[in-house]
């Protein structure tokens, strides 16, 4: 049951990550390079931190 929860959480996080990165790409194409980099960093953080905390801390 716990593994299923973990998988659901990861899928959700991946969905958020993909959507955020695609937004970063759109921002990059609109010549807002700094904004795009910031969005991609945020996307990575929102993916990595929860996964790290779920798998390695809890």
């Amino acid at each position: 049951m716990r593994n299923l929860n973990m998988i659901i959480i990861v899928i959700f996080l991946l969905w958020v990550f993909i959507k955020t990165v695609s937004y970063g790409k759109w921002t990059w194409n609109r010549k807002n390079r700094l904004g795009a980099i910031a969005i991609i960093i945020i996307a990575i953080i929102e993916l990595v931190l929860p996964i790290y905390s779920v798998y390695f801390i809890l």
Partner: protein
Amino acid sequence: MADFKSKLKGLFFFKEPEKIEKFILKENESRNSSSENKEKDSEEREGRTSRDNNNKESSKKRGVKTPIARIKQVGAKDEEKSEGSDEDDKGSKDISGMTKVSKKLSDNLAYIKEKYTIPVNSDIVIREFNITVKGKTIPTFIVFIDGMTDTKVLDLAILQPLMLLSNMEIKDDDNEVGNIIRDHLLPHNQIQIVTELSDVVDDINFGGCGVFVDGIDKAFTADVKGWKSRSIERPNTEMVIRGPQEGFNEILRTNTGLIRKILKDEDLIAENISVGRRSKTPCSLMYIKDIANESLVNEVRRRLEGIKIDYLFDSGELEQLIEDNPYLAAPQILATERPDRVASMLTEGKVAIVVQGSPFVLVMPTTHIDLFHTPEDSYLRFPYANMLRIIRISAIAMSLLLPGFYIAITTFHQEMIPTDLLFAIEASREKVPFPSLVEILIMEFAFEFIREAGVRIPGPLGSTLGIIGGLILGQAAVAANIVSPILIIIVAVTGIGSFAVPNFSLGYAYRIIKFVYIFLAATAGFLGIAIGLFLQGLWLTSSKSFGIPFMAPIAPVTNGGLTDQILRTPIWKQEKRPDFLNAKNNRKQEHFSRKWVQDDKKK
């Protein structure tokens, strides 16, 4: 299937949102228009009368519409008259550079249409018709602004004569069309012949009517003003028991007429000066030619002419634009609603400015003592007037310093008041948890709230709010032990004292300065108040109003200027005008103004 795919894609990937904003003021639009204006200005400077075709093409590419293009797009009438519009097109090549009235009527018509953005502007009326002069039919049109003109005068004095009388035989050898129209066909008392198009537009903007006739390079402007205005009512801010009850209204000529009606002096001058690059608000500079100092009049005129703003709406704005020291709390120009007061000050050698659209007339220079006077002071017998002035000055001092005194005494100088009173004050403050400063600030702010709300609430509700606010709030505050009862007395006396300030601008100034004294007293007691008085004295004595020291004739003391300053002498003793005004004629009445007393003595 494709629909499902796109939905799935939209679920995982970011999609640019559809633009649903209703209105965005784009930076580019204003830039384009400003750059267009710059282009236009530079073209005018270079003296070019027409625009290059290349420029037109480029502006079309950018999507910038010229006024003419806009007119064509919106106006359906122009499309109906194909020939007429062709003529307009020909004329439109030249009209942007037109400054003088053209002999071609179509050019003038196109210019007026462009200038007033017709037919977008719905209240601009153009009436085209034909007149007959010496058997010759000439196309003509008149232009005026509906709502600003008297249509009866227009019909009877402009249209009817031009359309009907022109058919009658004119017994005049003069064959000049312009002269015949002026001398025989426009029976109106104020007709001007102008050659500059900008003059015609200025007159039309101020309720005039422009008459253009084909074949002559002049236009006629007639003064047919007829807008609705407020009647002459009692002045709300300067009520008196004795004396005239007339107040100014918003119409310049009515106001100058009211002053002239009182003075009845042919030396009274009313110079016209327009202020505002776009609004061209008419102002009237008034002074008595052989009394007012020439350099003072020149200085006022110089300041008025030196104002570079787009629009001027009220004399309150003008006051701020011409005053000497904008940071001084006290006003340096007197604003009054009373024609008798303006007239009286003009006789002293001062200068007045009447602004179209404002019921307040500005009088300058003004001293601090002038602001304590009311017009009634001159109309009452001098003992009553002096008593009223003493009461008024005491009330003003109270309103300024009483809260500060209360704080200074209760906080620092308890030994100054009788012991019984001290005990009474302390007993009343026993249950109040706040220091005196907080206590007084709460009540002063509450009082200011009530005052401000009372002004904004319409009609009788305002006074009701004042009573409810004053009585119930004060009583409740005491019952709740937020403030002490004695403080209610202090705040009430301060409030009543502030209403005794005759000039409402000075009243505002003292309301602000009162808080400064409260903080100074809370900081250093009477020493703080003394420092405040010293600094305020320095500030006031160093200020000037149009070259006159603001505290004259007290600081500096001037000769013979004290007949009607803090107190006033009997009216027959007021022989001279205030000498700090350096009037051309310093004596305002004979040494023996009551000649009959001299005659009695001789008997």
